[in-house]
């Protein structure tokens, strides 16, 4: 019951912001509100997709009581590797096989990095904050080193890289990927043994140990999933920006964490939902769009977001149950 109320709370916040966005939206020459134009609405969805995808796995990480600061760097290594593989490797492969191999290689590396995060956290019992802070720094360094600190451009010609970008920057593909990932992760959390274990560990890790749950394995999987989705977001980033940029994704971890927290998952873990995180991501996305349509200074935009984050958590925190 409380859970329902809390979910309703963040939904109410989203509706409020939507209404506000519609009310203050500039009006186009034909009299319609620009905010409500289909192009604008799908733009919002496209813009939130990358952070949204990362935030899905971040929800799992935070549910276990952990944190993953390395997601931005994992996105960077993936986007760099994607561009490198497309422009420099496998010159004789067919387009399809070349693109698939590039994506697989990039996502595999970031997933592996996530698995290493999880293994170090659970085997050495070092705080997730410290471990993922270290890999945030180290993986960023790796990305810059591999690319000699240069952007690897994906051209607009007719080569395989350009083909890749043309396909994976389409709105339908980007938004569709986010929708599919969201559905999969919602099912994973709500319906599977793994999801139940994730919540149990975050609720009471000591009791989870006494109940004989596979704590190490679950944590390794959770951080691997975070690496997987960050890597996939990196692939989309490369297509959208026509380049592999080793400096991409700076501060993405903070946006993802903000979305999770606004969505009702406390940093202590144990409770929360994928639907909440999606609502949290939408709140941030609509807010950004609304302010940009009004030409609000981007620095002011940051200040307003800061207030929204604190307000959202303050409203949810009132009925803390410990």
């Amino acid at each position: 019951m409380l859970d329902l109320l809390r979910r309703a709370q963040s939904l109410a916040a989203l509706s409020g912001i939507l209404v506000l966005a519609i009310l203050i939206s500039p009006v186009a020459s034909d009299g319609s509100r620009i905010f409500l134009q289909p192009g604008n609405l799908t733009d919002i969805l496209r813009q939130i997709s990358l952070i949204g995808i990362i935030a899905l796995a971040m929800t799992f990480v935070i549910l276990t009581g952990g944190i993953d600061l390395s997601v931005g760097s994992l996105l960077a290594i993936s986007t760099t590797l994607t561009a490198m593989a497309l422009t420099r490797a496998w010159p004789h492969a067919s387009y399809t096989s070349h693109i698939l191999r590039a994506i697989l290689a990039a996502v595999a590396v970031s997933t592996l990095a996530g698995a290493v995060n999880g293994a170090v956290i659970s085997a050495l019992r070092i705080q997730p904050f410290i471990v993922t802070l270290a890999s945030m720094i180290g993986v960023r360094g790796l990305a810059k080193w591999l690319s000699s600190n240069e952007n690897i451009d994906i051209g607009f010609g007719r080569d395989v890289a350009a083909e890749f970008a043309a396909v994976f920057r389409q709105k339908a593909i980007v938004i569709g990927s986010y929708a599919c990932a969201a559905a999969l992760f919602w099912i994973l959390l709500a319906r599977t043994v793994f999801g139940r274990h994730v919540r149990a560990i975050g609720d009471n890790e000591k009791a989870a140990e006494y109940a004989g749950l596979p704590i190490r394995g679950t944590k390794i999987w959770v951080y691997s999933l975070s690496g997987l989705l960050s890597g996939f977001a990196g692939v989309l980033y490369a297509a959208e920006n026509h380049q592999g940029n080793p400096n991409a994704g700076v501060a993405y971890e903070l946006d993802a964490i903000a979305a999770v927290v606004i969505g009702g998952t406390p940093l202590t873990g144990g409770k929360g939902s994928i639907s909440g995180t999606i609502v949290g991501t939408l709140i941030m996305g609509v807010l950004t769009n609304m302010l940009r349509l009004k030409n609000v200074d981007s620095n002011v935009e940051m200040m307003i977001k800061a207030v929204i984050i604190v307000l959202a958590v303050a409203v949810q925190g009132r009925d803390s149950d410990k």
Partner: protein
Amino acid sequence: MAAPLLEARDVSKRFGGVAALRHAQFSLRPGEVHALIGENGAGKSTLAKILAGSVKPDAGRILIDGQPAAIASPLDAQRLGIGIIYQELDLFPHLTVGENIVIGNLCFPEGRLTSPRNVDAFCRPFLEQAGLECGARRMAGSLSIGERQLLAIARALSMNARAILMDEPTSSLFDDAAERLFGLIRELKDRGVSIVYVSHKMDEIFRVCDRATVLRDGETVETVEVAATNAGEIIRLMVGRNLQIAARPYRRPLGEVVLEAHGLTSGKLKDVSFQLHRSEVLGVAGLVGSGRSELGAALFGLDRIRAGAIHLRGSPLQPASPRDAIRRGIGLLPEDRRLEGLMMRMSVIENSTLAVLARMQKLGFIRRRQEISALGPVVRQLALNCPSLASPAASLSGGNQQKVLLARWLLLDPDVFFLDDPTRGIDVGAKQDIYRIIDGLAAAGKGVMLVSSELPDLLRCCDRILVLSNGRLTAVYDAKEATQETIMASATSFGPHMRKPVKDAP
């Protein structure tokens, strides 16, 4: 006779719904060592903390030198010359010995910058008096437990305390360190310092105390001159006369041996050997800190086993983790259901099926219908009372929370159950239900080990009762022959000079 140095009149205190103290009386003469004694939960520590100002009483008065005194904080107590040494030894491990003594100390002139030399000079005499042979600049965290105890005493002395309260000071000491402490207590007494000695160890009372006040269920039973009484008398006062115990309705013949420990030694346990049979309820009696929970921890793969062997169904068992122990067929119901047992934000059904999800899934997906149908009979068996199976565990009463946790183990259905104080803090009705479940487990051929702080529980449920004291097995009783007095005597015996249980005429 002079007015008592420190007196408590009609002091009452409730914690939530539990009355910790009810009109307790206590009076401390100048220069005496006065024991506060009682079972776990009798209110000893609460009374000591009220006298030291760290807990506020709900009702009653505290008098010092016959005058009403307001002790609202530990600082007030310090001004009035009352020092306390907590069971947990509240020291700052990252400060030096000297800093630990002067911090918050009204007798140390503070205000300006303090040089380490000033601290040294201030502390030296008190360290000498306490017999702590170390420099004032050593880090407190590097001291042994015994040395920390002495540091806490030096701190109390430096505050010019006329009365020092010691809350179970030997609970973490080895025999030689305890010996030194007794010597120090005698010296302090010769110097006119009064000491309140909170303990439940009978032999210590007889060695160092002049008088003893016995508490039971938060009430003062009696204050006795130690020289004019004996251990049996004090135990009778502690346990009380209400010995109406319903015995287990019928007993089954014991089955084969299912669990056997030989010379089991862990961080806390020393050379513990026993056998557990199928259809047997084997009680484990002992005070808090006696090693009774650590016995479960060793069997369940939580504590490392240093020596000795465990055999489960005849094959050797060296559990590496709870997960391992569960796989081999041991279930442990932990002592603290909030911290070690339940996921408070998860629902009744999620908590119950947590350990057996592997049986209720297909390709990793939970089969909810199977979950509900498996839980149904267990809920009826336990007489679990909850608004819905989807309500969070936090919303249930203590007794029903305990039943949810029991449901987890009933569903898992191990061969050996180790139930650590399952009736702690739950109401009478729920207690009866849990008795019934324990009887049922034995009837189904399980081996059950039952830890309880409440002796009537053990006498009601068990076939045999192991008694632990200070990590050692001090006695094994047939439950038909044991009484609360004999068990308590074995549980309070401590050290080699009191190995044999005290037998008293009824």
